[in-house]
């Protein structure tokens, strides 16, 4: 059971997660529909 849970563990520092989250929120967002349309066009 422990082996199943192991792969989803996250070990990075909270500061790193904060950086990622800040950057993600600062980026322009695309909705799921637009993304899938662009992928289809490509």
């Amino acid at each position, binding site marked *: 059971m422990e*082996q199943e849970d*192991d*792969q*989803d*563990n*996250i*070990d*990075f*520092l909270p*500061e*790193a997660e904060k*950086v*990622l*989250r*800040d*950057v*993600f*929120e*600062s*980026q*322009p*967002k*695309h*909705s*799921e529909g637009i*993304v899938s349309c*662009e*992928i289809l066009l*490509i």
Partner: protein
Amino acid sequence: MKPISKAYVDALEFIDAVRKHPQFQNLRRTVGRRKARKFELEDEFFAEVIDRMEQETEHYIDWDDISEFFTRRGRPRTTIQQLQQSEKAMIDVALSSDPEDKAAQTTGKTINYNYQRDGYDSDPEFHTYSKEVEYEFKLPRGQVDLSPGKTRWKYDIDEEQLKHRTYTAESSAEPTRHDRSYQIERPETVSHKLSRGRSVPHYLDKRFGAIYKDKNTLHYTLPEPFEFDSRDRSKKKSIRERRIEEDIRAIREEEEKMLKHTFRAKSVPASTTGRL
């Protein structure tokens, strides 16, 4: 927590922005993720995970996928599936190709190219070969270079003779008239013997062609492996390559096992042989 998981961002722009973040330099050598028990990806620093994300991610990425790159699994499940599919396709291609060539490419098997002829006639008039050229090309580590478009052969060369010739060539780089040793050691060409005998000087001999040339006067090109080639050779095999090789080996073993299987009939049951 804000529900940001359904929004997508441009992956490359996101990665660039992370690298330009003021705290990135402080965090780059911190733990990005640790190795999972079931997966082969080793421990990585934060910057290494970002680098790998740049290589493996698609054009757009959402928050869930970003977090999955930092899990011990190391990749989103969809990426893992895509990798497995591409590996399977590569295995199929490898199995459908010529096994001899594949073995040569993967295991560095030495192929004997000796006693093949070159593509040119020695005698352009009669289209005959003066002799069969013995081809041999071995890299310093004893492996045949199989890269396409690269010269594979060299002529059969007596190493002692080669040393001697290079020595004489160096010593007689600029021969003078008074240099007797140069005049004495100067080799006679084959053409003397073939055409007019020893009495006729070589400059009167009008014969021309490869078969009339003396072996000692030929200049050989010694192919050497390129630096980038040796660099590739010493490079460690990637996980994908190792997996493919293992899978191919397993499939081959399974096939061998099936081919060597002997069917044995069971003994006739007692109900058949015995009296009713």
